[in-house]
């Protein structure tokens, strides 16, 4: 006896429906009761929202296909202009009736034409009485989105849609759905224990079903290794956990962040057990710079993150004391490391450069061209207009860790020169 009751559709269809949409029974029954019978009217517009991969598209598609209701499915990320959208709808509508004429393209420029052509299509296919899912016809438009309706509402108002919420999966639901996909060689319990461990590590960070499935599929081979090698049985959870724990933590830093691709990850698992030498995408940001460029970058960092009035104290041999009140020190908001880099003029950069480099540096074209190459590498950015030749301003866009690494290579203690760390 299926959980859904509906006078119109046969029990077999409903039973099948129930088996394909686990953990979404209440949403499906709600939708079924809203749709009603084929020739009844339904809400003119429905807005369904919920997190990514909470099953909105999947449930709608399965529901409409199983119940064989005439519908048109359009992805708004693909059809991003109104013309593409309208033409796609009309083409799909035309192909609803005739299966032997694929690729028929209807051209439609404006919404006005769309309404006309739509009415013609509906009349031609005798769909007048049935609700067509996507005037004064029996049409329902269903919107599926991640963002709540309040952000979409136009200024002067419109016909409010019925908003339905697809709740996120709870941890129990996630466990149930993920365990569904277990490979046939191993028992369901074994896989369920694995999913448990995986969720334990990743659940606090990410609840996206697709992401978790991907991670589960990638790491399962590693999990099974001890069993395959004969070191542990299926039930020896402690050893399996010890084996997989560091691996999963490494996965969080790399595959989850898309630092390395999944094929690289699989290769590393096969080669050896130690995922120590992964070169992620962000590691490639490290570039070997020539000697003066390193100092230029350090000078730029100091110029961006130190206020200009403190230059005297840091870079002059005989400086006075600068008064720093307690109030300023505690007010963290003025910490420049929280607010971001500030722009500085070229002269200040050169002045700081001369004071931090030991030997005398002449302002040759060499130095200036190195500044431009730093801009090209996007380690500095040019602030203001390109044409401003006599007073260009720059900003340093590297992080503290990066500049510390560079400073270490030239034996320069940058922390001593930063205002925020006084």
């Amino acid at each position, binding site marked *: 006896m299926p*959980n859904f009751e509906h006078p119109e559709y046969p029990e077999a269809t409903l039973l099948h429906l129930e088996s394909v949409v686990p953990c979404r029974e209440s949403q499906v029954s709600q939708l079924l009761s809203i749709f009603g019978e084929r020739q009844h009217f339904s809400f003119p517009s429905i807005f369904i929202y919920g997190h990514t991969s909470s099953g909105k598209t999947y449930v709608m598609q399965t529901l409409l296909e199983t119940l064989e209701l005439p519908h048109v499915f359009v992805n708004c990320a693909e059809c991003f202009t109104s013309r593409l959208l309208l033409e796609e709808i009309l083409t799909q509508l035309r192909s609803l009736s005739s299966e032997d004429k694929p690729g028929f393209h209807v051209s439609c420029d404006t919404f006005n034409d769309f309404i006309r052509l739509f009415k013609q299509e509906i009349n031609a296919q005798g769909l007048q009485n049935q609700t067509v899912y996507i005037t004064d016809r029996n049409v329902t438009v269903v919107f599926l989105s991640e963002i709540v309706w309040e952000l979409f509402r136009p200024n002067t108002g*419109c016909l409010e849609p019925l908003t339905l919420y697809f709740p996120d999966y709870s941890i129990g639901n996630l466990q149930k759905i993920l365990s569904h996909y277990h490979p046939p060689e191993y028992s369901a319990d074994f896989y369920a224990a694995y999913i448990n461990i995986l969720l334990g590590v990743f659940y606090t960070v990410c*609840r996206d079903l697709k992401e978790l499935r991907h991670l589960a599929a990638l790491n399962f081979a590693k999990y099974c290794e001890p069993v395959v090698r004969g070191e542990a049985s299926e039930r020896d959870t402690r050893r399996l956990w010890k084996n997989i724990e560091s691996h999963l933590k490494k996965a969080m830093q790399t595959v989850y962040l898309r630092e390395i691709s999944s094929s690289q990850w699989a290769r590393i698992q096969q080669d050896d057990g130690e995922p120590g030498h992964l070169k992620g995408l962000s590691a490639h940001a490290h570039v070997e710079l020539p000697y003066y460029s390193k100092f230029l970058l350090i000078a730029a960092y100091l110029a961006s993150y130190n206020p200009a009035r403190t230059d005297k104290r840091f870079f002059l041999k005989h400086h006075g004391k600068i008064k720093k009140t307690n109030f300023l020190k505690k007010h963290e908001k003025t910490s420049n490391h929280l607010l971001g880099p500030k722009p500085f003029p070229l002269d200040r950069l050169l002045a700081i450069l001369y004071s931090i480099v030991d030997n005398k540096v002449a302002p040759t074209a060499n130095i200036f061209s190195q500044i431009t190459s730093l801009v090209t590498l996007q380690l500095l950015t040019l602030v203001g207009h390109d044409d401003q030749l006599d007073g260009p301003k720059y900003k340093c866009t590297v992080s503290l860790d990066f500049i510390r690494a560079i400073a270490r290579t030239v034996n320069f203690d940058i922390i001593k020169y930063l205002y925020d760390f006084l």
Partner: protein
Amino acid sequence: MLLKMQRCDFSAMSKRKSKENSSANGECISQVQRILRERFCHQCPNGKLFGVELQYKHLLELLKRTTIYGESNSALIIGPRGSGKTMLLNRVLKEIMEIKQVRENLLQVHLNGLLQTNDKIALKEIARQLQMENVVGDKVFGSFSENLVFLLEALKKGDRNSSCPVLFILDEFDLFVHHKNQTLLYNLFDISQSAQTPVTVIGLTCRQDILELLEKRVKSRFSHRQIYLINSFDFKQYLKIFKEQLCLPAEFLDKSFTQKWNKNVQSLSEDKTVQDVLQNHFHCSKDLRSLHMLLMLALSNVMVSHPFMTGSDLLEASKMCRMDSKANIVHGLSVLEVCLIIAMKHLNEVYEGEPFNFQMVYNEFQKFIQRRAHSMYNFEKPVVMTAFEHLIQLELIKPVDGPSVRAQREYQLMKLLLDSNQIMEALQVYPNCPTDVKQWATSSLSWL
């Protein structure tokens, strides 16, 4: 399983009552659903119009003068969304079309500001609807100026006694004023002032300040006749409307079922819970559209095993209509994302709503991890950045000055689109929230 058990609970009572009628119910219920759904979803409300009799008479007089006596006129029907402008106009048209003379002579042109987004399209649509000579099938020939000249000449050549009156109905009138130079509006109003073919222009709009949007020359040609529709009924009348909307018409097939149904509706309107639900709804928005949505949702629960609507149906429907959608989204966030939201809430409190950036939020999060957290693992910065970006994607946070290429991602200023009451309420229902996170939410960390 749970849902089915719930259904059995409410329908237990009504099952006892309706056991006798179980034979005729399937067909009955289907018919009931059909009639009521058409009423609610297709905007054909039942019964007489309430509270708009004066406006109805006014409009009827106006249209009669055009169609029978050949006077040209213009009018604007102004009212908020869902107050019944289109419905009023349709009723008046229906009544007027019953007069034989009108039915044979009146030409109607229906334009909509959403569909005809500029004057060129509007003009082609007018030519198409009037079936003028430059139209073959669906295609309209000629350029914009040719069409306009042709239309104006055609309308200017007639006279009051021998030409057919033309009625122009402009829905979403406030969108037509944004067309270039308001050409179409100028010409239409101009014709309605000159005494040739009797032309009436009726605009429907929801903007109360529509007259200020019209250009001076257009405004002077407009007759300044405005018909206002305001939902001026009070709660007692609202209850009456509720009953009327749910009642089945007398000519329904099964007489005894109709009686039972209507009696049920009467008892519902006297039930305290139902009155409370309707009162809440009435306080939020008076218009009939939201009432229809509520009734439609309650109606979808009506089936053979549950043939009469009950108060709990309406209660459930009301709850569904009034859910806080942002709180629902927060319910589905991961624990790390919730921690970031709490950090932002504290930043907002300390700095009184000034925008923040990722670096500040991360700093706040680090303070929590170092001092108070026992259950949260110290995640790496890129992982926290991914969580932050997910919040941006969900539009719970928005950049203050649009996406800019110059600033680094970590330093771009953002603002939070949730307020602290919403956050605290959402945290109460958040499943499996670690206690130290909850405690952190209620008391911010002191400075020292």
